[in-house]
C-alpha cells in the first residue's frame, strides 16, 4: 500500500507551471521537470513501449548483465583463426555497406588491407574485386568484433581476444596502429603497409607470448582505474595504455624474442596513447553483448558507424540495424585541415559511449575538454545530461569530480525519444578523401531519426 499519507509529501511536476506555482505557494517542496514534447510523431509508439509489461524487468536484466560482465585479455592471435575469416574476407566498422556507398576513409582502408593481404598489387584494383564479390565485406559486429574508425580487419592482422570468464563469451579487436597516417583513418601509403607488416610479424607475436605467459589481464579493472586517472576511454586512453604496458612488460621481457623486438614493441605501445582503445572497445562490447536479445528491453547494445551510415542495435530487437546518415563531427582540426576535409562519423568506437565511457564519462577527463568542446563545466554538463537518457549508473566506472557517482550506463531508446537528448560521442575525424588519414577530433551525435525507428520496432514487438 502507498505510504503517501504517512510521509512528508514532496512533488515532482511535469506540465502546467500554474500547478507547480500553486504548490510552492503552499510551502510544498516542488521539483519541476523541464518537460518538452517527445520527438514528433512518437507518442503512440512511446505509449505502446511504456505499457510493455516486460520492459522494466528486461531493462533491469540488461543492466545487470552489463554490470556483471568482466573482460579479461586472454590471447592475441591472427584474425583468420579467431574470427574464422577466409583469405578474401574483410571486416569493417559500422553496419553493413557495399563499395558503392562506402566513404573515402573506408575505401582507403579496404585498399590498404587488400594490398597488405596481397590480394592486389595496385590499391586501385580493390574496387573491382569488392564489386565483383571477390573480396567479401561484413560488419565487425557480426563477428563479435569491433574496430575503431574504418575498423578494417583482414585475416592476417592480429587481434586481441577478450573473454568473460563467467560465461566464456569472447570478443575481438585489431591492434592499434597509432595516430596520423594509419589504415583505420583511411591511409594506405607504403609506410602504412610496412607498419602493418611489422605489427603482424613482431608486435602480435610478442604480445601473444606475453599475454599467454601472464595468463590474463583484467581489462575491466584497468577501465575502472583509468576513469579515475583522467581517461574517458575513447579520446583519451593514456593512463589505460600505461597500465596495460605495466601489466605486460615483465612478461614481454621474459619471452624468447630478441631484445630489440621487445624494446621496439614496448616503445610502440608506450608511444601510442591510444593503444588501449583497441582493448577497451572489445571489453565494452563483451559487456554489451551479454545484454543482447532480451525481449522487451529498450537498451541500446551497439552504436556503430561505417562513415556513411550510423547504425543502432537494441537489446529487444535482435540483430536489426536502425540506420541513418552519419553526421560530421565538430571539433578541432590538425594542422591545415578544416571542417570541409572531414568525413562523416566513422568507427565502432561508439561502443564505449554505449557502455558508459567516452562522451558519457567526459566529466572524468578534464584534460581533453578543450579538445572536444570547451570548459570543464561543459564536460560536467555533458556527463550529467547523459544521465537523463540512461537506465542506470556504472558500478565500477566512478567519476571523482561527481563524488564518485557511476558513469551514465545503458542508453534507453524511450528516454532519448522522450527528451530529444542524443547520446554524446567523442570521436576522431578521418579525412574524407581516401588516403588522407586523421584530420581532427571532436564531438558528434547519432542522427536523431534512428531512435524513433528503433522505438517503432520495439512497439511492434510488444505483446501487450
Amino acid at each position, binding site marked *: 500500500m502507498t505510504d503517501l499519507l504517512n510521509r*512528508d509529501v514532496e512533488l515532482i511536476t511535469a506540465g502546467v507551471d500554474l500547478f507547480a506555482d500553486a504548490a*510552492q*505557494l*503552499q*510551502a510544498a*517542496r*516542488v521539483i519541476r521537470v523541464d518537460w518538452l514534447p517527445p520527438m514528433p510523431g512518437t507518442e503512440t509508439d512511446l505509449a505502446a513501449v511504456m505499457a510493455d509489461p516486460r520492459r522494466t524487468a528486461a531493462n533491469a536484466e540488461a543492466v545487470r548483465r552489463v554490470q556483471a560482465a568482466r573482460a579479461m585479455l586472454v590471447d592475441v592471435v591472427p584474425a583468420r583463426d579467431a574470427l574464422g575469416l577466409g583469405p578474401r574476407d574483410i571486416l569493417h566498422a559500422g553496419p553493413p555497406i557495399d563499395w558503392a556507398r562506402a566513404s573515402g576513409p573506408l575505401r582507403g582502408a579496404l585498399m590498404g588491407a587488400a594490398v597488405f593481404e596481397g590480394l592486389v598489387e595496385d590499391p586501385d584494383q580493390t574496387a573491382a574485386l569488392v564489386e565483383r564479390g571477390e573480396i567479401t565485406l561484413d560488419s565487425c559486429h557480426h563477428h563479435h568484433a569491433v574496430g575503431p574508425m574504418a575498423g578494417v580487419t583482414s585475416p592476417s592482422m592480429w587481434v586481441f581476444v577478450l573473454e568473460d570468464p563467467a560465461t566464456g563469451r569472447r570478443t575481438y579487436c585489431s591492434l592499434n596502429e597509432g595516430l596520423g597516417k594509419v589504415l583505420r583513418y583511411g591511409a594506405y601509403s607504403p609506410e602504412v603497409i610496412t607498419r602493418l607488416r611489422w605489427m603482424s610479424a613482431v608486435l602480435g607475436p610478442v604480445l601473444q607470448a606475453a599475454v599467454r605467459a601472464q595468463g590474463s589481464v583484467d581489462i575491466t579493472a584497468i577501465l575502472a582505474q583509468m576513469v579515475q586517472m583522467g581517461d574517458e576511454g575513447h579520446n583519451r586512453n593514456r593512463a589505460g595504455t600505461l597500465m596495460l604496458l605495466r601489466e605486460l612488460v615483465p612478461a614481454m621481457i621474459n619471452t624468447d624474442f630478441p631484445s630489440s623486438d621487445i624494446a621496439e614493441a614496448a616503445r610502440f605501445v608506450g608511444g601510442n596513447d591510444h593503444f588501449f582503445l583497441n582493448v577497451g572497445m572489445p571489453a565494452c562490447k563483451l559487456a554489451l553483448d551479454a545484454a543482447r536479445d532480451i525481449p522487451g528491453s529498450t537498451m541500446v547494445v551497439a552504436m556503430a558507424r561505417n562513415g556513411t551510415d550510423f547504425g543502432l542495435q537494441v537489446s529487444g530487437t535482435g540483430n536489426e540495424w536502425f540506420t541513418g546518415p552519419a553526421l560530421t563531427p565538430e571539433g578541432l582540426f590538425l594542422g591545415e585541415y578544416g571542417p570541409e576535409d572531414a568525413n562523416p562519423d566513422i568507427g565502432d568506437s561508439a561502443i564505449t559511449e554505449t557502455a558508459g565511457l567516452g562522451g558519457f564519462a567526459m566529466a572524468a577527463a578534464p584534460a581533453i575538454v578543450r579538445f572536444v568542446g570547451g570548459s570543464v563545466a561543459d564536460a560536467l554538463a555533458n556527463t550529467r545530461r547523459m544521465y537523463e537518457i540512461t537506465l542506470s549508473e556504472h558500478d565500477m566506472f566512478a567519476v571523482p569530480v561527481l563524488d564518485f557517482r557511476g558513469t551514465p550506463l545503458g542508453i534507453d531508446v524511450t528516454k532519448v525519444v522522450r527528451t530529444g537528448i542524443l547520446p554524446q560521442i567523442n570521436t576522431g575525424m578521418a579525412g574524407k578523401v581516401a588516403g588522407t588519414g586523421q584530420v581532427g577530433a571532436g564531438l558528434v551525435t547519432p542522427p536523431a531519426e534512428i531512435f524513433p525507428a528503433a522505438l517503432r520496432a520495439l512497439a511492434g514487438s510488444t505483446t501487450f
Partner: protein
Amino acid sequence: MRVPAAFSTALRTVLTGPVQPVEWLGASPSALYLITRTGTVLAILTHDAARLPCSLVLASTAAELPLIDLAPEPDRRLAAPASVGARRVQWCGPSGVVTVAAARAWAPPVITVGAAPWPAALDQLRAAVATHDIGIETTLVAQLARAGADPEAQFAAVAALLGRGPGLTPSGDDVVAGYLLGARVFGRPVSGAAVAVAELAGNATTALSAQLLRHAMRGECIAQVAAAVAALAGRCTPLDGAIDRLLAVGHTSGAALATGLLTAAALPVVAGAVR
C-alpha cells in the same frame, strides 16, 4: 523576501491572532527560534530539520537557504524584534524584510495512550542506544530509573535532569520528554514527573525546551519519536529504520529521547492502562 511555510496547528492561535512582537531566542542554518511575551516559542525550520511540534517548516533545506543568513546580526537582535500574527512572522533581516507566510497547517504527531512494548523491540532499542553518548551523567538517568513509580522520587529525579546539558534543548530535558511520552504510550505512572515538569520546567531550563516538555505532556512530539513508539508497540512500522531515524535526531537528542522511552518502559504497568 516572502517564504511560504507549513505551520503546526499548535501554533494556530498565535499565528492567526493579532500581530504581536516576538523576541529572538537563537538562529542556526536550519532553525530560527522566537518567543512571544507570554512564553510561546516559535521555531522556523528548514525542510530537513526535525519537525518540532511548535514549528513553521519551509520547503527549502539548510543547504539551499541557510536560515541564519535571514536573521538579524546577533548584536542587533535585541533591538530588532520580529512580529507574529495575521498568518505570518515578519522581521527586518540583513537584506530587507523577511515574511514567513503561514501557508498551510499540519498536525504534529500525538502519542495515543495504551500499547504494550514488545520486549524484543525494547532490547533492540537498548542495544542501539548503548553505543550513543547522551551528553549527561548516566547517574542522573539511573536515579530516574531507580525512582520507579514513587512520585516523590520521580519529582526529585526529574528536577535533577531538567536543564542538564548544553544547548537550546538540554539532553536532560530530552530524557524527561522521552520518559513522559513513553509513559503515555505504555500506560505507566509518572505523576511525580509530571508535577516536576509543570512546576519547575519554566525556570529550570531554556524556553524552547520548556515548551517541548509542555508538548510532551500532551503527547505531542517529533515524527521520529512517534514512529519509534509505534514500532516498539509492534504497529507494523519497520523497527530498524525507526530506531536509526530516532537516533539520528540532533547531536544527542535522539539518544536522550530513546533513553527516556526505555526508562518509562521499565516502570510498572498501571492497571487497565494497556490493551
